């Protein structure tokens, strides 16, 4: 009897001690630093991901849902102003980086090359995520030196957003109701001329003011289409080439002939397209949702004849390709416990499993299964832009400082297209400035 009592008391004491020593149910804490803004007012406590809209709303709700479903893990979010790389670099320098961070595929090399990121192959494999699950564009975007350094969550690229009413007026719609897009530089210039003659409006709406990214993405796309290996050596660019000259001269001709808007910044270019001020808006995947909504609203310029969206047309005889980038979730290199590593794996698995939810932002999914799914194809216009998953091409993964390179290319292209500089001089300066940058890393 005494023995029983002793055993019972011992068991009770053990349970009490265990409970006391489990301060937690102390959840494993992970820090997640991201851009995409804050939207606490609308989605601060929302865990129903299906109800969320927009980048901020969806990612906020995804993290809320993960925290709710996993009481043993707490993901603490820090938002940073886009793209947040100044802060991230400073955090690495101070030895206090976040556990998980949003990084563009094009910026991964800047950190991976310095050994600041954890290769994720093992973590992903442990959670049942295989590289073959990713689309080609996504897998290539996050693979550096043969290893995966980020969970890709999407791909984005530039698109031809088309005002179908104006295309009909211009006679640029085929019998099936699809827009007729050019297949060569000459066709592009001819169609732009025809468009202006018939509608009195410019063929292209471009944000050429206060801008560098658009120029750069356009140049990369049409260099890829000419099989130009301008970064054959990732530490040295060769861009003062006949191929690059063809692209710059094409955009200069469009500019000189008045077939594009000229003085619009990014926001104004969106206003112009929504107001029906031009035929094709060169903008990203992220605008599909807004333009679709406008097209469904009676009385709007896009509602008159509809809205269509396509990848950039193939204008050259090389491989079918266009520049694409993407977002990924990378993990910082720092000391952490097995529990923390396991928690990170669980979080990445959750994000991969919810790739469809993220794709509602307008970005292309990173997972093959999602892009091939019926529910994704049922989203507006996803059928016409889906080829991007195969066409999407990044710069070689070892090229560093891609955001800084973008600024240089944009500045020089702008100078050439607007006539401030000769095309040859711009390309020469572009090449020398980039190489100087890369030589001083």
């Amino acid at each position, binding site marked *: 009897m005494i023995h029983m009592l002793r055993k019972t008391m011992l068991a009770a004491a053990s349970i009490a001690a265990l409970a006391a020593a489990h301060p937690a149910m102390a959840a494993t804490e992970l820090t997640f630093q991201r851009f995409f803004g*804050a939207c606490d*007012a609308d989605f*601060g406590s929302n865990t129903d991901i299906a109800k969320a809209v*927009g980048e901020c709303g969806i990612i906020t709700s995804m993290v809320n849902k993960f925290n709710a479903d996993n009481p043993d893990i707490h993901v603490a979010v820090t938002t940073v102003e886009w793209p947040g790389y100044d802060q991230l670099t*400073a955090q690495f*320098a*101070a030895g*206090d980086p976040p556990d998980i961070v949003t990084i563009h595929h094009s910026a991964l090399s800047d950190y991976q090359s310095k050994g600041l990121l954890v290769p994720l192959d093992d973590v992903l494999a442990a959670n049942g995520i295989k590289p073959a699950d990713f689309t080609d564009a996504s897998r290539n975007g996050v693979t550096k030196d043969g290893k995966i350094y980020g969970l890709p969550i999407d791909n984005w690229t530039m698109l031809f957003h088309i005002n179908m009413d104006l295309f009909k007026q211009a006679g640029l719609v085929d019998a099936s109701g699809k827009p007729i897009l050019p297949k060569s530089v000459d066709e592009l210039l001819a169609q732009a001329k025809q468009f202006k003659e018939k509608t009195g409006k410019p063929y292209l709406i471009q944000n050429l003011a206060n801008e560098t990214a658009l120029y750069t993405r356009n140049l990369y796309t049409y260099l890829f289409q000419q099989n130009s290996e301008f970064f054959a050596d990732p530490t040295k660019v060769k861009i003062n080439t006949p191929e690059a000259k063809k692209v710059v001269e094409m955009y200069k001709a469009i500019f000189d002939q008045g077939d594009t808007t000229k003085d619009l910044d990014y926001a104004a270019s969106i*206003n112009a397209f929504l107001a029906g001020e031009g035929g094709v808006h060169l903008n990203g995947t992220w605008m599909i949702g807004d333009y679709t909504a406008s097209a469904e609203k009676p009385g709007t310029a896009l509602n008159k004849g509809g809205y269509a969206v396509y990848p950039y047309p193939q204008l050259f005889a090389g491989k079918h390709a266009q520049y694409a980038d993407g977002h990924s979730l990378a993990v910082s290199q720092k000391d952490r416990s097995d529990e923390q590593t396991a928690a990170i794996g669980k979080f990445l698995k959750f994000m991969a499993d919810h790739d469809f939810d993220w794709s509602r932002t307008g970005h292309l999914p990173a997972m093959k299964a999602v892009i091939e799914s019926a529910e994704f194809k049922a989203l507006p216009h996803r059928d016409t832009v889906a080829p991007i998953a195969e066409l999407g091409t990044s710069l070689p993964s070892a090229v560093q400082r891609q955001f800084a390179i973008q600024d240089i290319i944009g500045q020089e292209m702008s100078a050439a297209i607007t006539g401030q500089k000769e095309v040859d001089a711009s390309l020469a300066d572009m090449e020398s400035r980039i190489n100087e940058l890369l030589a001083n890393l």
Partner: protein
Amino acid sequence: MSSPAVSSGPASGAPSGMVGRSTGDRIILGLTIAAAIAMMAPLVWVVALSLKDNKELMVSMNAVFHAPYTLQNYLNILATSSVFRWILNSLIVAGGLTLGTLVLSSLAGYGFARLNFPFRNVLFVIVLMGLAVPEQAVLIARHQLFSWMKLHNTYPGLILPNLSAPFGVFLMTQYFRAIPKELDEAALLDNASRFKIFWKVLLPLTLPAQATLGIFTFLGAWNDYLWPLISGTKKEMYTLTVGIASTQTNFAQSEGLGFLMSQAVFAGAPILILYLFFQKYIVTAVSGAAVR
């Protein structure tokens, strides 16, 4: 050009205003009003945009000229869980920096102006050379130093770097130099200590310069972005400028313009309130009258 009203104004003791002004005055007044409107217009535009729904602005900027208007953008800022923490952080950093700068600059200014010590002039030149060194030039070294001292994401980490204020030392030195030395000598005759002379006699006379320096320091600290961005990287240590920037969506300039503008107004409001209280000193400071 003089109208009867103009010529009769002064004689009849009419109140000042347009009445009694010469043509030249009227032109200057007109130009001043035009300049004021030109300067106010962007501010009014920002406030007007902040009162509009983001989706309306995305379709057309003309939406700003007609109802409906909304305070939703401001409510969204206030709904951000950390915003009041960020305001508190900014107050602590700007307040601490202002206080520290005033104390150090006053003491240093007094020393350079009144005390004789070895290498005084050389040291003063070295301090002045600090005016020529931009913050960006020392940023990396400073960041590493603060990393080593483990001061990032702390209030001292945000305050200490800007306590070295060459402008403040220069301003206070010049101000102390302009005060007649006879005041010191009279106090010395009364057996006052050096510190007592500084504290009781000279410091009160430098209040206009202190106000000028304090206002400039506070404004600079409140608006500072670069150092808080890379030193205060944890959400709970953001200052208001860094915090509200972090709430912007990727395409804020097109998809969230109203919210973006409300952020600008929200961040600027405390400074506007400060201006209302210290208008006289700010005008004096800007006009340079404080530097004798």
